[in-house]
């Protein structure tokens, strides 16, 4: 391959959400450049794992970039609105133990740091951190949507993400990418790979469609990691010494009634040796138990899932998914980049799977190397960026475990063992004993979780930052008191204006959202 040869042909191996999001983002970004051609090869025999059913607010940007109408997406992907996550029983395991990680920043976040003052408010009112600084918990507790039917597509009163049916989302993206964005769809099984002298992939040879050449190959083949793993043998870096979850049991639970309420947040309820996710779609819930098989048995995990789901559980089809926590040492090797499960996997505690796909697809689409000569530069950047992002996500997930006070199973005790806590996180924890998390703790352009997310988890789980170092000035204190008040006003306003999540979704199905 000539070093200054233009990168025109992008071949994505593997369908599923990772494949279609990547194909779509690249095709949309370069749709006015006729020489760029995007091909997606999908095996007709392998069905996608379809793990990601919860997104981040980034998905709104992704859909916009792809030129997708939000109403169509909601209608065709069983979509509903998600306003963050509720963590139940993570601290003490008692029935009244819960906290929120919402999607709205603390009130006045760019004016003052309410984390410095929330404790005195808490002592007066007994209210939690997220209740005091953010109006979104109140919306979620009332089952309200983040917007009204009068908001245009992607517009809202409160920041939001989605819950979606992964299989339907894949099919929806496939149709959009092939019909609107000119992505070529090839149904074929890849059987072998040919290489250039420099070890770049020259082509993949398929059983049904012959040899397919490309300048850049994207590995979206899921756990099988056909290109990055089997072909290039890039090392997999496990992190099961930090995060112990290794198995998921998942079911799809129908609603009792057509009009049953839809929770507008993901619910994560801690168990003996893991936790149960609960994601409300339009026509069903997605519920699953992820656990550490080193700390509990599959029978016990099954039993707990059954207890959580209740009546009718035995009739549901159970899926078991192995969770091999970790990621590739590098994600982009030669002219091959891994996106999705082939790049790595973590328990879905903070819905990191789809957002990593979106961020990867964005970087590839926006920084698509012009020619082979510059590809290694972009590849290095990609590898550094995503290694950093994986580490930060691992740290953030670990935070949820290390702050638990549960002692009912060795799972929780082991999670607090300092040997299992990454140094980067230990360092931050030392700092946060005296300084609340602030944006300067997270100075990289590639941050995934901002300081506010750490605040919600830290203070939601009862962590105390000593307020002894720097005297606070009256002016800042008064500004903070004002923000606490503004938040209470925002709660009243939102509670008055917003419809229930179910009501809004029914209206969208009936009338659609306007584009403005």
């Amino acid at each position: 391959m000539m070093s200054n040869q233009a990168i025109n042909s992008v071949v994505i191996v593997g369908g599923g959400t990772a494949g279609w999001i990547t194909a779509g983002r690249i095709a949309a970004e370069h749709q006015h450049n006729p020489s760029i051609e995007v091909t997606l090869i999908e095996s007709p025999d392998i069905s996608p794992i379809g793990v990601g059913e919860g997104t981040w607010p980034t998905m709104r940007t992704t859909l916009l970039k792809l030129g997708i109408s939000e109403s169509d997406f909601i209608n065709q992907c069983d979509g509903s609105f998600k306003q963050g996550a509720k963590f139940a029983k993570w601290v003490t395991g008692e029935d009244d133990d819960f906290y929120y990680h919402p999607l709205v920043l603390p009130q006045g976040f760019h004016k003052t740091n309410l984390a410095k003052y929330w404790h005195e408010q808490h002592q007066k009112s007994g209210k939690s951190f997220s209740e005091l600084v953010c109006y979104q918990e109140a919306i979620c507790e009332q089952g309200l949507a983040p917007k009204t039917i009068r908001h245009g597509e992607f517009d809202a009163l409160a920041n939001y993400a989605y819950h979606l049916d992964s299989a339907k989302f894949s099919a929806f993206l496939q149709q959009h990418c092939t019909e609107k964005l000119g992505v070529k769809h090839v149904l074929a099984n890849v059987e072998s790979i040919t290489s250039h002298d420099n070890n770049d992939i020259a082509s993949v040879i398929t059983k049904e469609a012959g040899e397919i050449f490309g300048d850049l190959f994207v590995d979206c083949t899921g756990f099988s990691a056909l290109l990055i793993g089997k072909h290039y043998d890039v090392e997999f870096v496990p992190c099961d010494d930090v995060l112990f979850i290794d198995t998921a049991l998942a079911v799809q639970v129908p609603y009792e009634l057509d009009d049953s309420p839809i929770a507008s947040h993901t619910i994560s309820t801690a168990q003996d040796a893991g936790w149960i996710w609960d994601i409300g779609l339009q026509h069903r819930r997605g519920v699953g138990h992820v656990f550490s098989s080193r700390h509990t048995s599959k029978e016990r995990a099954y039993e707990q899932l059954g207890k959580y789901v209740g009546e009718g559980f035995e009739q549901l089809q159970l899926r078991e998914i192995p969770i091999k926590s970790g990621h590739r040492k590098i994600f982009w090797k030669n002219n091959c980049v891994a996106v999705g499960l082939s790049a790595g996997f973590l328990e879905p505690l903070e819905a990191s799977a789809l957002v990593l796909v979106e961020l990867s697809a964005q970087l590839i689409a926006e920084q698509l190397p012009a020619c082979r000569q510059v590809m290694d530069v972009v590849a290095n950047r990609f590898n550094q960026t995503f290694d950093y992002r994986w580490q930060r996500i691992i740290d953030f997930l670990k935070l949820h475990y290390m702050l638990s006070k549960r002692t009912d199973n060795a799972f929780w005790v082991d999670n607090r063992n300092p040997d299992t806590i990454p140094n980067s996180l230990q360092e931050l924890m030392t700092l946060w004993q005296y300084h609340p998390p602030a944006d300067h703790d997270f100075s990289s352009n590639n941050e995934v979780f901002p300081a506010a997310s750490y605040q919600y988890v830290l203070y939601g789980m009862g962590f105390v930052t000593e307020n002894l170092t720097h005297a606070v000035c009256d002016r800042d204190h008064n500004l903070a008191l004002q923000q606490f008040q503004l938040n209470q006003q925002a709660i009243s306003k939102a509670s008055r204006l917003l419809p229930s999540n179910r009501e809004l979704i029914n209206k969208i199905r009936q009338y659609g959202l306007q584009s403005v």
Partner: protein
Amino acid sequence: MSKLVALNPLHHRHLKVDTKKVEEYGADLHMIPVGVNEFAKIVAQFPILFTKNAQTGQFNCIALTGFEEGENLFWQNAQFDSVYIPLSVMRQPFFVGQDEQSGQDYVMCINELSSVLSKTEGEALFDENGQATPFLAQAQECLAQLVSGEQQTFDYIQMLNDLKLLVPLSLEFTFIDEQSRKIQGLYSIDEDKLKQLDGKTLEKLNSSGSLQLMYTQIASLAQIYVLLNKKNQKLGEVDPWFSAAAE
């Protein structure tokens, strides 16, 4: 309060409509629904904008008559002070409904609880022989215009949506009493996008009459200043003695 029933010569033969009261329906509306077939008359006095229906999120065409809920700045000295009053006001107390028994479309209905109805005052609906009076015939004509206007307006809005020509209009005023008010939830025609349309599309819009409607709407925006003037006049005459304290 309303109770809509199909108009019936037998049932309603003694009813009269007090036409002086009809305009009162608009007394406290700050937005009045209008149809595209009224634009040519509406533009003489009102800004013509779009707003979203609170229940469905769908766009409606409205004439803006005030800056806050309950305020119609054209309502002065107990009358609707305007050379043209929109059909959706003048149609009172008549509506178009579907007759459930016959399944017939477009049955003329009357709001039996309407305050404009009287046994003694106003225009009779039927004569002694049970025949429709000229007044009722005129009311029927008004409804027919409304119905045809609704469909045309629906098509017009759909076209604007398809071409993505609607744009939010954020109005911010400082009135004479130094109070600022921000008015949200209004939409207008995106002039920049309209200018960028290709010749073929423009030709189509021209021959369908939509282009003229759009420019009528754009021209009607100037009426916002007239409305603002009315608002300031109203504020100015509230109290000749006091002025507002500085904040």
